[in-house]
């Protein structure tokens, strides 16, 4: 247990540290990388908590996602390299306050609530995967399917907005010109 707590703390600190780093650099790419590391640390926390399947999944997914994000950063930021050291923030004091309060509230709940006894032994990995499969194809099948539909919708939506259309404004223009 002790070791588990220790590693959890270490990876937790890593996740937090990288998380902070995301907003402390003015370089997009660095932000994206920091986020990637942070997410990876979270994945490692999963592993520490003996949730291998989800942990691996997290690390793999985030790796992909963050690399995409980095590309977009470069596309859309005014100053991708962060060379200008430009401040990309606003209402900073308020935001810090809000973050602290949010974290504080969550911590308070975590500490104050009576969570009851903690289970020491986790189910083994194979068992976990099998049970998750049962869950997926049983009770949560509808949820799973809905998630699938959501992904489909996301694909359509993303395509719909991302690809330029012969837009309405030009349609109006056309009418005018006729």
């Amino acid at each position, binding site marked *: 247990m002790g070791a588990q707590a220790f590693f*959890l703390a270490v990876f937790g600190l890593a996740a937090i540290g990288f998380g902070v780093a995301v907003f402390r650099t003015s370089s997009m790419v660095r932000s994206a990388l920091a986020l990637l590391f942070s997410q990876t640390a979270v994945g490692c926390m999963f592993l520490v908590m003996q949730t291998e399947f989800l942990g691996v999944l997290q690390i793999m997914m985030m790796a992909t996602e963050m690399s995409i994000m980095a590309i977009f950063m470069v596309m*859309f930021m005014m100053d991708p390299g962060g060379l200008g050291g430009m401040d990309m923030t606003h209402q900073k004091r308020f*935001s810090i306050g809000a973050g602290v309060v949010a974290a504080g509230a969550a*911590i308070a709940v975590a500490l104050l609530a009576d969570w009851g006894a903690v289970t020491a032994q986790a189910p083994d990995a194979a068992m976990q995967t099998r049970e998750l499969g049962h*869950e997926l194809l049983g009770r949560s099948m509808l949820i799973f399917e809905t998630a699938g539909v959501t992904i489909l919708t996301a694909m359509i939506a993303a395509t719909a907005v991302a690809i330029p259309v012969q837009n309405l404004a030009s349609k109006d223009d056309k009418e005018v010109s006729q």
Partner: protein
Amino acid sequence: MTAVLIVALVTGAILFGIGVYGALSQTNLVMIMMGVELVLAGALVNLVAFWRFLHPESYSGQMFVLVVMTVMAVEMAVGFGVAIARFRARGSVEMEEAEDLKG
């Protein structure tokens, strides 16, 4: 004994706080999305911790993790779609420039 749980929960809470800070303070759409990702990461940590230390028998916790991961992915996808459209229309995804609609 609950220390393990508390460590995980506090980590999740702090990630949440950082995410909130990011979402509120960033001027760029993409950076705001990063904040959101961090909030969701906090949620993931919480979920796994709760599952592992409190309710290992309930696999809907793990299911929830999958759902949250889906959320992260699809939001990012559509977010980038919106960003592209915005960039095409205005040449920037800065939030502070988006103030034509108000009142």
